[in-house]
C-alpha cells in the first residue's frame, strides 16, 4: 500500500512541477562538466566499483546534508526531510546511472554543526568500518560564526589524515550559495582553506557554491526568491539536482563515462 502512496506522491510532484524532469529525461538543472568532474581521480572509488561493484559512502555535514533546515521553535515552519537530502538523492542517481551497483549510505552530522564537532564523528566512523568514499560538507557554520579559517584548516587536515589512513577518497563540499551569504559573510577565506586541502592526495573539492550560484543566476533553482508555495518544491529540486551532480562527479572521478 505504501508504494502506491509513494507512487502517487511522486506523480503529484511531477505533475505539479514540470521543471523537475525535462522532456529528454535528463536532469532539470544545468550540470556543467567542469563542476561535475573532480580535478583529481578518486582511486578508492574506482577500485571499489571495479572489485565489488558498489560503494560504501559516508556523508557528513551540517543542516543541508542531514536534511534539517528547520529553525527550531517555529515547528510549523520547519522543513525536515531526513531521507531526502542531497546525499540520498545522490545514491538514487548512482543507482539510476549504474543499476547493478550496490550503494550504501550513512549520513552523519546535524544542523549548525562545525568541523570541530564533526571531526570526532569522522574519526570514529572511519575506525569502526570501511568506507570507500566520504563526503564532508563543512565551512558554512564556520563562516557564519566567523570562526578562524586557520582553525578550520587544522581540523580539516586532521580529517584528511584520518581519511588517508583509512584508504578512503574524501570529497569536501563547500557552502551553498545564497545572496545572504555573499552579502553578509566573507566566505572566501574558508573557500581558500577548503581549496588548500585538495593539495593532499585523494582529496577533492565539490564546488557546491559555484554550482548553486549558477542555478540561482539562471533562475533554475532560487530558494531565496521562491514564493511561499514553491518553497518546499524548490528544496526538493535543489536536493535532487545536487544529488545528480554529485553522482556524476563520483563516477567521473572513478573514470566512468
Amino acid at each position, binding site marked *: 500500500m505504501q508504494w502506491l502512496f509513494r507512487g502517487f506522491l511522486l506523480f503529484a510532484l511531477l505533475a505539479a512541477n514540470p521543471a523537475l524532469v525535462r522532456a529528454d529525461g535528463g536532469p532539470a538543472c544545468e550540470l556543467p562538466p567542469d563542476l561535475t568532474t573532480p580535478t583529481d581521480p578518486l582511486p578508492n572509488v574506482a577500485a571499489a566499483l571495479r572489485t565489488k561493484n558498489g560503494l560504501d559512502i559516508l556523508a557528513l555535514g551540517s543542516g543541508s546534508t542531514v536534511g534539517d533546515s528547520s529553525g527550531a521553535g517555529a515547528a510549523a515552519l520547519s522543513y525536515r526531510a531526513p531521507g531526502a537530502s542531497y546525499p540520498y538523492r545522490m545514491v538514487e542517481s548512482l543507482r539510476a546511472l549504474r543499476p547493478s551497483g550496490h550503494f550504501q549510505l550513512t549520513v552523519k552530522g546535524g544542523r549548525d554543526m562545525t568541523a570541530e564537532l564533526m571531526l570526532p564523528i569522522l574519526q570514529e566512523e572511519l575506525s569502526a568500518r570501511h568506507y570507500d568514499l566520504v563526503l564532508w560538507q563543512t565551512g558554512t557554520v564556520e563562516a557564519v560564526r566567523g570562526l578562524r579559517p586557520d582553525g578550520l584548516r587544522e581540523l580539516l587536515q586532521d580529517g584528511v589524515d584520518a581519511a588517508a589512513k583509512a584508504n578512503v577518497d574524501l570529497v569536501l563540499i563547500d557552502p551553498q550559495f545564497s545572496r545572504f551569504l555573499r*552579502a553578509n559573510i566573507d566566505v572566501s577565506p574558508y573557500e581558500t582553506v577548503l581549496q588548500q586541502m585538495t593539495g593532499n592526495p585523494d582529496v577533492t573539492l565539490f564546488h557546491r557554491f559555484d554550482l548553486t550560484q549558477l542555478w540561482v543566476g539562471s533562475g533554475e533553482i532560487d530558494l531565496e526568491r521562491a514564493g*511561499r508555495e514553491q518553497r518546499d518544491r524548490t528544496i526538493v529540486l535543489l536536493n535532487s539536482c545536487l544529488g545528480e551532480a554529485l553522482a556524476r562527479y563520483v563516477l567521473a572521478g572513478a573514470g566512468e563515462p
Partner: protein
Amino acid sequence: MPTYPADPTCARMDLIRHSAARDLRVDFFRGLALWWIYTDHIPGNVLGDFSLRNFAMCDATEVFVLLAGYGAGLSYGLGLGRNGYISTAADVMKRAWTLYVAHIFLFVLFTAQVTYSATSLNRLNYLSETRLDVLGDDPYRSMLEALLLRFQPSLLNILPLYVVLLVFFAATIWLLRWPRLLFGFSLAIYTLARLTGLNLDSWDAGGWFFNPLAWQFLFIIGALLACAPMRPPKRAWLLDVGAATFLVLGVVVTLVIEPYPHRLEWVSNSPLWLLVVEDKTSLHPHRLISILSLTWLCVRLIRFDAAWLRSRWAAPLVLVGQNSLPVFCSGIVIGFIARLGLEYDDSAWMEGAINLFGAVGMLAVGALAAWYRAKGRAKPPRAMPTVASALLPVNVQPDTG
C-alpha cells in the same frame, strides 16, 4: 531686502556641525562607511558590488571602528587634562551605556521584524541566517544572553563591539598621557588575541563575531591619531609607496583572484596562499594594514580644509556621519525591508527604489537627529548663568557619532 536683528532663537539652525577644529573628513568617511554598511548587507543589492570590500582587504567595519576610536579620542581624550580621569572615564561609560541601550532596542526591533517576516512569509532561512533560530530553541535563556551581549544575531554585532571598546577605553584612557605605553599595551593584547585566538565568550558560537581583544587595537590607533598625532615622518614618500603598494595588492586579491575559482585554487595551493587567507573576527593583519594604508593616503591626499567637504555634494554623507548612531540603527531596519523588497521583485527598478529608499531614510533620520540637537543648542538657558557657572569647565560635547 529688510534685515532682521540677529535673534538666537530665530537663527537658522544649521544641521551640519562646523567648527574650525572639526575634521569634516572624519564625518564624511564615517557617513560613507554607514552607506556601505547599508548597501553591503542587503543580499543581492547591486550597489553592494561597488563598496570598499570589493576593492580592498578591509571593509566598512574597519573604517567605522577606526573613526569611532578617533571620535572617542577627540571627544574624551582632549578633555582628560581638564576634567581628570574619573570624570572623563565616567563620560565614556555614559556613552557606552547609550550605545548599549540603543543596541538592546535595536535587538528587540530587529528580532520582531525578522521573526514576523520569517513566519508570515514562510522563510525559515531568515531565522537561521540571522541566528535568531537560537531564540526559538531557548527563548528564556536567550533574553538573558542578549542582555549580557553573549547572544548576537547577525548584523547586530557591531554595536556590542563598540560598547566593549568604549568600556576598554574608559579603563585605559589614563594611559593616553603616555601614548607609546598605550600603543604597546594595545598591540600586546592584539598579538595575544591573534596568536592564541583568545576572544570574549559567546553563548551560541565559539566567541564574538568581532573579537574585541583584537579590534581594540584599531580603536586605540584611532584614539591615538586624535590625541597624540605622530610627527610626520621624514621620508613620507616611503610610506606613500608602501601604502599604495599594499592597496594595489588588495585590489589584485579581491578583484582578480578571489572571484575566480581556478585562480583561487592555484593561489591557495602556492606559497602565495598567505595573501588569500584572512579572518575578520580577529582583525587579520592584512585587514589592519589595509585600513591604515587607506587612512594614510586619505590624510595625504585630502586636505583638512578641502573645499569639497563643505560642498552640498558632500553634505549628505557629512550629515549622516555626524549622527551615526541613529543612522546605523535605522539602516539595519531599513536594510531588512529593502531585502524583502528585492526578494519580492529583483528588477532594476526595485534595485533603484530600495537604494533610494535607504538613502532618503538614513538622511531623514540623520537630519532629524541633527535638528533635535540644534534645537537643544538654540534653546535659551532656563536660568541666567552666573559668574560661577561661567567659570566652570565646559563639558566636552560627547561624540554622538
